[in-house]
């Protein structure tokens, strides 16, 4: 049984594309057949995160408009043989694909792949409606900031209106030190506010930046916290029961030392 998952957020820049790339690599590392579909037409990035920008021949629009079969447009990952990218166009805009076209395409992709991950554009306009149309479930990415959480709530409402009731949450860019000091919302706060099951909390990690520079998602690095957190999400998607990393609150003595400026 294949699964079509849309990665969405409402607010821009919270880590949808980063999450899509990492989960794609992580699932492929487990031997799953995975295709990543970039629907952020006009602002394509997923190719860069995967280091595949020089291998693109055709794009999503060529496929949906019937110019080529989807197999011709797929780009195979250099290292993970069961991972493919369906890039989008950098010159067209979001209206170039409609929901029916994406549903039809995803039905074809289901025949070939275990997982179809759809990287959604920011916002709640047509691009969003198209991206969610084919999804079995949605992964909402947010950050521990009030504006990102509010926008996530809005997206959750929109998903409900589109009859997408199966929604899971990933909280990205958590800064454990700030959480410890009581200066940042933690996963439990966001869980409580949004009432959506959380399947990942990803720490803010410089290695995300350096690995993006290299075009090699952080999930393949053993010594990265964000990489470990993404591996945990992959395990949970595969149905494993994996405990969450804990970021302890300050103890009495730590508070004492802080208060005394030590």
């Amino acid at each position, binding site marked *: 049984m294949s699964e079509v998952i849309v990665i969405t957020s409402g607010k821009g820049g919270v880590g949808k594309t980063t999450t899509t790339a990492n989960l794609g690599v992580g699932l492929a590392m487990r031997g799953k057949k995975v295709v990543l579909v970039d629907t952020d037409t006009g602002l394509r990035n997923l190719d860069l995160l995967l280091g595949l920008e020089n291998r693109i021949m055709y794009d999503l629009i060529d496929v949906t408009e019937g110019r080529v079969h989807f197999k011709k447009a797929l780009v195979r990952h250099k290292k993970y043989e069961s991972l493919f990218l369906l890039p989008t166009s950098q010159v067209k805009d979001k209206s170039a694909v409609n929901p029916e076209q994406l549903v039809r395409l995803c039905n074809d992709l289901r025949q070939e792949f275990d997982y179809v991950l759809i990287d959604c554009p920011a916002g709640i306009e047509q691009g969003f409606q198209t991206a969610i149309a084919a999804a079995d479930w949605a992964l909402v990415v947010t950050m521990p900031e*009030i504006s990102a*959480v*509010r926008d996530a709530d809005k997206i959750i409402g929109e998903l409900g209106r589109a009859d997408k009731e199966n929604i899971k949450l990933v909280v990205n860019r958590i800064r454990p030190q700030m959480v410890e000091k009581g200066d940042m*919302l933690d996963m439990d*706060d966001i869980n409580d*506010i949004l009432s959506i099951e959380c399947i990942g909390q990803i720490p803010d990690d410089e290695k995300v930046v350096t690995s993006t520079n290299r075009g090699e998602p952080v999930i393949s690095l053993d010594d990265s916290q964000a990489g470990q957190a993404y591996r945990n999400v992959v395990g949970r998607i595969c149905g494993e029961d994996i405990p969450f990393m804990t970021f302890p609150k300050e103890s*009495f003595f730590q*508070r004492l030392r802080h*208060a*005394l400026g030590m």
Partner: protein
Amino acid sequence: MINLLMKIFGKSERSSREIARDRLKVVLIHDRANVSPEVMDHLRSDIIRVISNYMEINQRDMEITLANDEDSVALVANIPVSKMKHA
């Protein structure tokens, strides 16, 4: 000194995390309370159905609205009762 003690015992002024959490809770009530007229119609007929088990009400003059306050949202209903049913 009090301030220092409060810091040590963790009872200092509210943390920015708590402030964020409280502000979010309120703003989401407001965001979510922008319900469609359709939902309000459903709510209205559900309320009528439940209340009619206990009393006769004047449906024409009843009013149901969501009232926004600064830090809360209330469901305000004014439902004229024309007759009580037997207990």
